[in-house]
């Protein structure tokens, strides 16, 4: 004998639909996808992902040192560093997506993230 009451109301269906979409989305989505317009800074034991905009100066501190990064027009350069040869300062602004600023003495790597054309560069 039917009571005339549906098993699920419209609201129930919406909630369950959203949950289903979430399940499918989680299943299909890769766990690690690089964002675009970001700068990744890797230092000993630490890592930061910073938005390339807006223009600003940011001090990155880590165990054993620090660097001052200057962001402008979506690019970045090392504006201040206390490494001995200061090669990272001479590198200037980060160029294309395959470019990297590397400070070997402080073990800091600065790269663009997202929109990368190559998976690796042989040099």
């Amino acid at each position: 004998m039917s009571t005339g009451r549906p098993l699920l109301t419209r609201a129930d269906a919406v909630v369950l639909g959203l949950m289903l979409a979430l399940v499918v989305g989680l299943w299909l989505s890769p766990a690690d996808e690089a964002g675009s317009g970001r700068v990744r800074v890797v230092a000993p034991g630490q890592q930061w992902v910073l938005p390339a905009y807006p223009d600003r100066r940011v001090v990155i501190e880590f165990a054993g040192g620090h660097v001052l990064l200057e962001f402008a027009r979506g690019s970045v350069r090392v504006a201040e560093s206390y490494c001995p040869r200061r090669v990272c300062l001479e590198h200037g602004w980060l160029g294309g997506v395959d470019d990297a600023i590397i400070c070997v003495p402080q073990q800091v790597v600065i790269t663009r993230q997202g929109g990368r054309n190559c998976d690796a560069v042989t040099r």
Partner: protein
Amino acid sequence: MKRVYIAGLFAAALLLAVALNRRQPTINHATFFAFDTVVNVQAVCPVDDWEGDNGLLAETKNDLRAQELMFTRGARADAEDIMASACLSPPAAWIELLHFCDKLHRDSGGAFDPTVIPLLDVWGLWGDSLATRPPAPGAIAAVLPRVGWSRQVRLLPEGCLTPDTGSEVFLGAVAEGYALDRLVELWRKRRVTAGVIDIGGDVAVIGEHPDGRGWRVGVQDPAAPDRLYTELELRDCFISTSGDYERGFTFEGVRYHHILDPRTGWPARGWHSATVIARRGIVADGLATTLMVMGKADALREQYAYQALLIGAGGRTGKWRWPEARP
């Protein structure tokens, strides 16, 4: 009651999806320092296999650290010290390397020579400080007798012996390539079917990108380090480059660099860079340096399976079965 039952089922499905998602193969990235350079790795595998104390990333770092120690004198890990100074009792893993170096030295007519350190010292291209002008010709001639693998090194089945004349064996020209060979072997044992390992520009690619294409590897333009000369899609191979832009100085308009011709004591001339693709890391790494010195892309085609691209001034190229760039 039924609603609660259905909602519970979905909640359970959600939790299951989260758990299973960590078992889905995905591209795991990491950047770290090893061999005194930057290492970039990408492995297509479940996150659970990648992370953690026993994960592939930790094992990769441990393996590189072990190799650093193998290549270094004492416990220091500077690239300048990547040399086989204790040649009397080399680690077992060296023996294969030493025999490879011996073969490449002979095949190349001496263009590849792991005893080149005294020359690098004279040129001021070894260690932290760089020279700003070439040495006097007499200084080069004075150290040449200390250079020469076939004269300085007696290779035995269990390793090598060097005479006590101040000569040293430097395996840096093949260290990264050898490290890549070992890592690819490790990754395959861990059932990684796709990935990229990049040790300071020496690159190994395994399988293909999850998008169904080859892994895209750019070749640096020696005339403009912020640009790529070409871009390739590669599967299951190794690619290495040697270039005159890496370490050197310019004096009176002439570039002097660290890729020295061991037979003359002077920097190799004719090409700005040599890039080699091979099925083994040590072949790609060793041949990139050797072909820079020999100056011909097909110079070793009879002895080794490889493809090569030499880039000279004005974009001039020399090729040996070099693959076409991707469209």
